[in-house]
């Protein structure tokens, strides 16, 4: 090989080496420029730029290491710088979000406090409303109770009046029943008089007194004869306008007359007008005392 050829090849080799070296430097500059631009963009961000200074410093250091690195370390430092820049951005975003979260928590607390105050005020208002309603209900209940008391009082009065009326009616009914019973008894007595055989007077106008009115052979009233006298008086009272004849029959005329007189006196003593009374004594085998009403 001639010296000229060797020189030519050496020159070409030098050119190739220089071109390769220039390309490598250009590629390294491209990565550096790209990453540097990213970091500058982050630093210029008005929100994130100043939020993570320590991480930004580490990213700048990694970029500087990339700039100073040789070929063997270049990929490592490109990776490191890229990660550091991403980490710086993430740290800045974390700082911003933490601040936002704190603000939101504060707002949350404020809203809760405001709600609690409003709820407390509403609860107080509700309590007051309930108290007023309760008071109104109590007053209404008292009024109703007073009305009920008055109504009960009136009712009691009405009931008393009704009871009194009922008692009166009862008394009247009893009196009426008694009157009816007396009338029936009177009719029975009158019937009994009729059965006694008195010829002239109808049965309802004659009353026969019991034999026990006088003891045997005497003209004085026997004990218990007052009932017979009362019967005679009542019978005489059944027709106040009629005259009353007292008929006594026995085996001794004098005793009969005396007995008629005793009965007459007893009836006068019992309230029968003496002017209505007449006596009649007669002899008879069977003893008999009749009270006869005559028009």
């Amino acid at each position: 090989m001639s010296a000229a050829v060797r020189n030519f090849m050496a020159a070409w080799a030098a050119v190739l080496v220089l071109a390769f070296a220039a390309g490598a430097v250009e590629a390294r500059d491209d990565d550096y420029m790209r990453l540097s631009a990213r970091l500058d963009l982050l630093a210029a961000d008005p929100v994130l730029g100043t939020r993570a200074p320590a991480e930004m410093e580490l990213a700048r250091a990694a970029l500087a290491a990339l700039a100073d690195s040789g070929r063997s370390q270049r990929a490592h430092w490109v990776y490191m710088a890229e990660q550091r820049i991403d980490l710086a951005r993430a740290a800045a975003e974390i700082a911003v979000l933490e601040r936002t979260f704190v603000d939101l928590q504060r707002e949350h607390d404020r809203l809760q406090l405001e709600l609690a105050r409003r709820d407390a005020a509403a609860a107080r208002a509700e309590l007051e409303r309930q108290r007023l309603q309760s008071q109104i209900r109590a007053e209404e209940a008292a009024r109703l109770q007073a009305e009920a008391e008055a109504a009960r009082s009136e009712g009691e009065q009405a009931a008393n009046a009704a009871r009194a009326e009922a008692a009166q009616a009862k008394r009247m009914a009893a009196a009426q029943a008694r009157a009816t019973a007396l009338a029936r008894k009177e009719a029975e007595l009158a019937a009994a008089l009729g059965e006694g055989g008195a010829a002239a007077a109808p049965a309802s106008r004659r009353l026969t007194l019991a034999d026990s009115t006088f003891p045997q052979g005497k003209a004085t009233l026997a004990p218990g004869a007052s009932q017979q006298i009362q019967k005679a008086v009542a019978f005489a009272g059944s027709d106040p306008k009629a005259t009353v004849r007292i008929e006594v029959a026995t085996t001794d005329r004098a005793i009969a007359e005396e007995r008629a007189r005793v009965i007459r006196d007893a009836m006068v003593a019992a309230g029968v007008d003496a002017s209505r009374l007449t006596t009649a004594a007669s002899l008879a085998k069977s003893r008999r005392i009749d009270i006869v009403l005559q028009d």
Partner: protein
Amino acid sequence: MTPRRGKIHVAVATIVFFSLGACAPTKPPLDQLDAASRALGVARDAGASERAVDAYRAAAQRFDEAQAAEGRREYALAADLAAESQVGSELAAAQARLARLRQDVDRMHRENAILAGELHQVPATELPR
């Protein structure tokens, strides 16, 4: 090339070779590996395996590669990979924290909107009866 110039070249190459050999790490980068392992644990505890899946997976992969390089006694490469794993874990942890914070902020926004709505509602007790 003269014999003398060749000897000089050989001497220079020898010196350069040994100099480079002296610069390469001769010990395993245990501290870097340990730091990378701890950073990976922190990222995992921060939920990065769920919230920052890609970043966490890349950091874990680089940690595995660092351990493999250390096993091959390629200590310089192991140190570089450990450093990359560590910064990757830090980024994964930050992204996980960011995701959680975004969720918290969104939740707080919603809660505040609900509270504000309740506050502007007329309470039932104030409605006309």
